[in-house]
């Protein structure tokens, strides 16, 4: 303002037309700008209904959802469908306590359906606990719990739920449940709706802000699950987030009106690019990818998406149902649908029936291997004893034992050559008898040696018995072996004897020649 006045005061008479010009310019700009602002500022009439009972006025334009909603008091409706989820609730409420989005701006809505366990009781006690916490920052806004049973067609086991044939009817039923939840829970003053399954294991506490700041109508993170080592550590979990492909559209055309295409099953090969498979563990978590179908584990959407009627079709909508069809319907309603390929949350690992079978087999196998190991130790022990290496001892013993059987050093064979030239049968007989008596003596000696050997062996046996009493088998085999040895040694003896005779004969024969 000062500049304008000072400008005026310095004006000379000859510049008056130019002054008028500048004033005109100023006025025109001012009027135009005011008009522009006024046209933007629609002064909506706001009825004053403060003192009128049970009457409420909401301007839906105030609840559109902005990328920094947590700074603008924007309310989030947090929807959680629950079924037999008692075991997951402690983990779930652990995540809830850590949420960084201002808790008083989060309204919770739970739908408990067809539960056989005490999901309801557990849910209530958890909520009571968190709402009565001394720290007021933990308290959530409005909390509504709904109960509705839809009649369960399919069991809740992993394979029951994820089998191919079960998918169509199951999806339609789940879609109904989701619709029942949000249609009763959503209020005019909600700006955002966040869908979350209770069985998410690892999730950043800033999840709502992380998704919200992208300012998209519908946005989902990538969902993976950890796996046991023998299955490869990790795996994409949510295959319902995808981009439509020509293959998918062609397939859709061949199916009848009520058919439901479910992604991730061999029966329907669509060749669609999946959000899950595009993950790069080191990728930028801010990267966005436009999607056509989405999964329901964690969806953040602007409340206007639901308000204007987008829902989870419980019928075959463009050959899909539930969350995938929700994505398709969002597209029809011209809302943006986006996934974050490198921003990952982790679903819990639930083993499938095959996995359970395999795990059972693994447990049995482990027990069997332990048993085998134990047995092997015992066998090893007895084996070592039963087949002790006696080579070295034998080397020493051998000389001592064999020297007694080597008769060449102890006894000289004296051959009586007398009368060899005159043949006298009687004398001959006498001689033979003579040699026989000699042979008898030898045999007696040998028997004595054998007795000695046996005594030695007996001593060995005693030692063994002391060492190990339990190994009868081996002992018996041992004794068998020893008896075999005895037999062998007898045979050897016989052979030796025969040789002796032969030798004698040979000598005789040599002499003859």
């Amino acid at each position, binding site marked *: 303002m000062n500049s304008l006045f000072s400008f005026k005061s310095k004006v000379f008479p000859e510049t008056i037309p130019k002054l008028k010009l500048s004033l005109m310019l100023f006025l025109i700009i001012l009027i135009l700008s005011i008009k522009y*602002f006024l046209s933007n500022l629609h002064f909506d*009439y706001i009825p004053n209904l403060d003192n009128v009972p049970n009457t409420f006025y909401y301007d839906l334009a105030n609840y559109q959802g902005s990328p920094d909603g947590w700074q603008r*008091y924007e309310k989030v409706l947090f929807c959680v469908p629950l079924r037999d989820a008692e075991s997951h609730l402690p983990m779930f409420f652990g995540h809830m306590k850590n949420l960084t989005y201002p808790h008083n701006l989060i309204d919770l809505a739970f739908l408990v359906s067809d539960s056989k366990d005490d999901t309801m009781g557990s849910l209530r006690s958890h909520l009571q606990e968190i709402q009565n916490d001394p720290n007021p920052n933990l308290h959530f806004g409005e909390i509504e719990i709904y109960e509705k049973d839809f009649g369960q067609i399919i069991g809740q086991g992993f394979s029951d739920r994820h089998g191919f044939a079960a998918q169509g009817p199951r999806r339609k039923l789940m879609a109904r449940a989701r619709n029942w939840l949000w249609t009763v829970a959503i209020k005019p003053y909600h700006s955002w709706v966040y869908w979350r399954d209770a069985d998410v294991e690892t999730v950043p506490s800033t999840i709502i802000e992380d998704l919200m700041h992208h300012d998209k109508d519908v946005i989902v993170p990538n969902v993976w699950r950890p796996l046991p080592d023998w299955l490869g550590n990790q795996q994409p979990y949510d295959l319902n987030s995808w981009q439509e492909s020509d293959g998918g559209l062609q397939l859709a055309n061949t199916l009848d009106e009520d058919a439901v295409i479910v992604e991730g099953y061999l029966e329907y090969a669509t060749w669609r690019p999946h959000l899950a498979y595009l993950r790069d563990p080191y990728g930028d978590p801010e990267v966005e990818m436009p999607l056509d179908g989405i999964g329901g584990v964690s969806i953040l959407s602007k409340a206007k998406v639901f308000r204007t009627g987008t829902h989870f079709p419980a019928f075959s909508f463009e050959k899909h149902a539930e969350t995938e069809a929700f994505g398709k319907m969002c597209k029809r309603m011209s809302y943006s649908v986006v996934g974050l390929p490198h921003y990952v949350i982790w679903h819990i690992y639930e083993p499938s029936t095959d996995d359970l079978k395999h795990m059972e087999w693994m447990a049995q196998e482990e027990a069997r291997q332990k048993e085998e190991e134990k047995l092997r130790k015992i066998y090893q022990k007895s084996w070592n004893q039963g087949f002790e290496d006696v080579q070295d001892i034998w080397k020493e013993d051998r000389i001592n034992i064999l020297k007694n059987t080597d008769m060449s050093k102890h006894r000289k064979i004296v051959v009586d050559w007398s009368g060899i030239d005159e043949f006298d049968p009687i004398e001959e007989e006498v001689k033979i008898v003579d040699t026989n008596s000699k042979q008898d003596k030898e045999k007696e000696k040998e028997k004595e040696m054998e007795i000695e050997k046996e005594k030695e062996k007996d001593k060995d046996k005693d030692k063994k018995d002391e060492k190990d009493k339990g190994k009868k088998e081996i002992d018996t085999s041992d004794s068998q072996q020893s008896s075999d040895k005895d037999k062998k040694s007898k045979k050897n003896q016989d052979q030796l004897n025969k040789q002796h005779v032969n030798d004698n004969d040979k000598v005789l024969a040599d002499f003859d020649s």
Partner: protein
Amino acid sequence: MGILRNPYLRQIRRKPSSILGPLTIIILLCYLLFGTSNDPSNNSNNGQLSNNNLNIQNKYSYKPKNKNLFSRAPSDLIPNILPGDHISHFDLNKLASTPMAVYNKEKVLILSPMSKFLNQYWANLLKLTYPRELIELGFIVPRNSDGDKVLNFLEVAIKQVQTGPKEKRFSKITILRQDNDSIRSQKEKDRHALSIQKERRSSMALARNSLLFTTLSPFTSWVLWLDADIVESPTTLIQDLIAHDKPVISANCYQRFFDDSKKKESIRPYDFNNWVESEEGLKIASNMRDDEIIVEGYANIATYRPLMAHFYDANGDVNTEMQLDGIGGAAVLVKADVHRDGAMFPPFPFYHLIETEGFAKMTKRLGYEVFGLPNYLVYHYNE
């Protein structure tokens, strides 16, 4: 200097303040009016919050932002913080929609998208005999000057009823202002031009859905769609429609007029959106592009569909039912479960149908049946 022949440019060059002055003023004004301002009272709360999450503190700022001077502070727009253990529980298994609605104290939600407030409509609404403590009302008004006018009238009318004797008050009334820009012109001629039908009805569908899903509560059993230009109906409208116990049931919409040829008051059919599908209609649909719609009541799309409007028999039984494939929104009673299952008014071509007709189709896709009462009349306002 000689280069600047243009006197305006020369002026600016000689005296830059002549242009800079106004510009700075405008920028200052803009800043004052539309710049963000912070509410210091909220910062303490914010401090506590960030203490809780020291590790997250750097990632996002939790400092509250307020909007400009002319809009209300966002904190005013949300309901106050609730007591610590505010946990409500609803067993939807016990919720039912039965023909014995009054006896079972079943709640009815009456929904009317309103671009024009008609005294006759309001008078007719007040004449309905269904107990008011079981009735919730929902209105949605367009985001334009028409909406402002409607709000003015509604405010007065509602104040009169809701501050009156307790037994005559409605259980709950919700008024919404539509968020998206509505089509400005709502004149009779424009409204029925085929070229803008799709756009108009798409916008209408969005309004209906916004109204429906924000007002549908866990204890609503029935939803009555009653157009804001229905000025006459039987006073037992709700009970009569409920008695049929159908998922979706539509009354026949006629109009009173002065017949010049006969020189007397007469009636004529008005709403042609209640129809039964025909071979011809299906044939036309099968040859259409995905984003095209069939609208009933135009000579250039001859569907030869049997229209309920033409089935009216003045001497016939009022309880005569007929199965329908498409409905209009004049006076339609819907079991709330149908809406909870997801039946909405498609703002996009759904099987080449849109809004109420698309709703009928979606209802059928969800496995429900749609009926009409050809001899049960409600009357449309005559402009």
